[in-house]
């Protein structure tokens, strides 16, 4: 589906008024076309307003939902988002860990770290092992986002250096707290390991999220206190609540 064909159907897509094949083709185009993405977001706003009619919720519905929430929970990892590529890595990390151990000991261990982690709203990562077509769309989307971030007034660049003082990764942080991986030369890890990104806040390392074994795309949002330092460690694939290894790279935010 070319640009014109997709563009003509954006409004219909926002109303779910296209068939499945058209939906897939339009979404594939939108993931690579910032203009259409922006236009679709505008139509989605209208669709949301149209559907935003609140009604009294039937009694007992919440009880039904809450009684089913663990039915389908098999501990499997969440699948990557198809269109946006945004995967909150805190979510992924916690859910992977939960698949191996029970929740209560984990939460006890997390303690204050869990409370502090609230600064992290969402992080995305790439999963290069599968979903190739998704990754291609995500990459195109990511490149656009990073380019836009680098053009945003007030952005801050953070270069992360290895212990041998070589630049191995660069992040950009926007004034509103959104941050992105610009480039990475971190070597690929084995599949049972992952890079984990940390922010140093008041001297305490706070997990920002997992970067995967071969980082290519990381998106995160930080609210509240801004970290003074970004650091990366190598951790088990599920991530760690606190660093278990020395930083392989770190960088300081310029004031």
């Amino acid at each position: 589906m070319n640009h014109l064909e997709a563009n003509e159907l954006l409004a219909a897509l926002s109303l779910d008024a296209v068939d499945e094949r058209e939906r897939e083709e339009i979404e594939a185009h939108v993931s690579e076309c910032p203009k259409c993405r922006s236009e679709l977001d505008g139509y989605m706003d209208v669709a949301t307003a149209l559907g935003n009619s609140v009604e009294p919720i039937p009694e007992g519905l919440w009880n039904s939902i809450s009684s089913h929430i663990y039915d389908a929970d098999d501990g499997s990892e969440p699948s990557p988002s198809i269109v946006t590529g945004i995967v909150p890595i805190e979510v992924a990390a916690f859910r992977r860990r939960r698949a191996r151990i029970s929740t209560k000991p984990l939460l006890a261990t997390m303690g204050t770290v869990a409370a502090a982690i609230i600064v992290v709203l969402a992080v995305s990562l790439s999963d290069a092992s599968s979903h190739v077509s998704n990754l291609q769309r995500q990459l195109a989307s990511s490149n656009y986002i990073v380019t836009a971030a680098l053009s945003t007034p007030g952005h801050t660049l953070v270069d992360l250096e290895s212990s041998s003082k070589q630049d191995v990764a660069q992040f950009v942080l926007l004034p509103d707290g959104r941050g992105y991986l610009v480039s990475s030369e971190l070597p690929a890890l084995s599949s049972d390991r992952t890079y984990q990104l940390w922010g140093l806040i008041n001297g305490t390392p706070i997990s920002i999220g997992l970067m995967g074994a071969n980082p290519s795309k990381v998106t995160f949002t930080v609210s509240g206190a801004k970290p003074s330092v970004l650091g990366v460690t190598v951790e088990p694939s599920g991530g760690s609540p606190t660093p278990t290894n020395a930083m392989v790279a770190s960088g300081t935010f310029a004031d």
Partner: protein
Amino acid sequence: MQDISEASDAQLVTSIGRYSEVALAEVYRRHGGAVYGLARRVLNNSAEAEDVTQEVFLRLWNQPDRFDPLRGTLRSFLLAQSHARAVDAIRSLNARRAREMKDAVKVARGSYDMQHEVWDLSLADKVTRALEELPEEERRVIQLAYFEGYTYVKVAEILNQPEGTVKSRIRTGMRRMRSVLNEAGVQGAET
């Protein structure tokens, strides 16, 4: 410790990722009525709307990573999920059998009365007014597509109009709606 009722939607989703039922309950409290309301409007059936609502919240519980705070609000995300699932249901063979084409047209013409069903009268008033300001032919295609769950191809068939005309009217109508809603200060689904 932050009061759960003061947490942002994005923070709640992060907590849901850590299996916080309290966070899911808070999201349900904030948005459950809207999710259910839209499903009921599309399906015109309370029991099926409850099923859709349950599916939407269980999906958020199992796959919270699908919400992208950079693309829109949580309300917008949940409503899109609710609408898509309601439309899927209504397009199923059994649901389709129950609907005669002429009845659908009649419903689209005559029964749209948002003001009696919504709680948020201010927003409802703005949306109703924006719809009323649309030319009749644009309003009808949007209502058939969004509230009746028809594809634009089916809408064209029902109204005996070329598909290109229906596509164009949906697009023009949505643009007009957006302009009117923006002027009225309605930004997506901010809560």
